[in-house]
């Protein structure tokens, strides 16, 4: 009886947990007193960064098939589109910060910033752009699944590690505990999907994906 109850509650609980993991940090940041001293463009840029971190959490969950109710196919499609959304969020983040203070953004992009978190964020940004570009061109380039994973997995590790360090070192609108919790979940989800899919092994297929190059 208990087991059955858990099973029926499990799916909605996972979705609620995901919504809280992303929603609570955003809500806490929305209540930050720092916002009073910021212009709208700077605020938008900051929240684009927080949303981007939330999307980085969703990505391994989708590809690992941990989100109930999504077929393997739909999970992969969602991973694909959310990857695109992540790239857009990063563009808004960088563009908004550029408008807010051009010299500080130029310093960051040229790896000459005094802030220790900037190179981590910029490195993750380039990794996101490379993955998004290659994913969009994968068919045209005729990339085989194995080659694609050989490129994507290391870049995914760079994205996750870079984003987490970038976020943790920043003193901004995010509340410390909800920020640390979101970062821990991003790391945990990434490690889990890497272990579950045994990404270090030569595998022919990803969950339910066809062997033939698409």
């Amino acid at each position, binding site marked *: 009886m208990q087991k059955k109850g858990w099973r029926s509650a499990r799916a909605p609980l996972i979705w609620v947990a995901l919504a809280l993991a992303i929603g609570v940090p955003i809500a806490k940041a929305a209540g930050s007193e720092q916002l009073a001293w910021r212009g709208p463009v700077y605020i938008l840029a900051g929240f684009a960064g927080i949303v981007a971190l939330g999307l980085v959490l969703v990505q391994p969950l989708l590809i690992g098939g941990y989100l109930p109710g999504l077929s393997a196919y739909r999970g992969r499609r969602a991973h694909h589109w959310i990857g695109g959304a992540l790239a857009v969020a990063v563009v808004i983040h960088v563009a908004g910060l550029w408008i807010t203070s051009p010299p*500080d953004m130029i310093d960051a992009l040229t790896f000459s910033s005094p*802030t220790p978190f900037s190179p981590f964020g910029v*490195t993750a940004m380039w990794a996101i752009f490379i993955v998004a570009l290659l994913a969009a061109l994968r068919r045209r380039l005729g990339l085989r699944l194995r080659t694609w994973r050989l490129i994507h997995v290391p870049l995914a590790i760079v994205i996750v590690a870079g984003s987490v360090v970038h976020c943790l070192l920043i003193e901004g609108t995010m509340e410390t505990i909800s920020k640390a919790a979101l970062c821990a979940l991003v790391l945990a989800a990434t490690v889990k999907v890497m272990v579950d899919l045994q990404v270090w092994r030569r595998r022919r297929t990803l969950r339910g994906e066809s062997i033939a190059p698409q």
Partner: protein
Amino acid sequence: MTMVVLNRRNLLAVGGSVLATGVLASGVPGLLLPARADGLAPTESMSGGANNYRKGAAIVDRIGKGGFWMSGTVRRAGDGAPLAGQRIQIWAHTTEGQEHEPQSHGATLTDKDGKFRLEMPQIIPIFGQPHGHLAYDSGEFKTVFLRPVMRSAKETSLEAHFVLQPA
């Protein structure tokens, strides 16, 4: 008005020593301070120090409504003699304005002991760090831009120290 300098420190910053670099950069003025009067090394400009600089900020009694104190010293490289009457420009992102806005800028002069102190609005974190900007650029000595970082955003004062060399 940015100073993009690719030096060894910046290259290192790409790697894992980023934290150490940040500490080093913010600790430099302190490290240079100890009373080694003979051969006192000049302060180097900090990376990002000149960001959002506005030339010719007016000498003021106080920037905005005040409540936060920026202070420091200006000395001569080599013998460490205090430099009086030196104009120091100060700006930051505060509760009363963003870094680039004119009302966020002001200047003050050092006293006979080479000390300066200017009241300004509370500095708040911008671009991920609560920090201020200071400049010496009056021409007699080599221009120096500093960017000290507060240990905590709750602090209500910040220090920066200049050791200037002839231009």
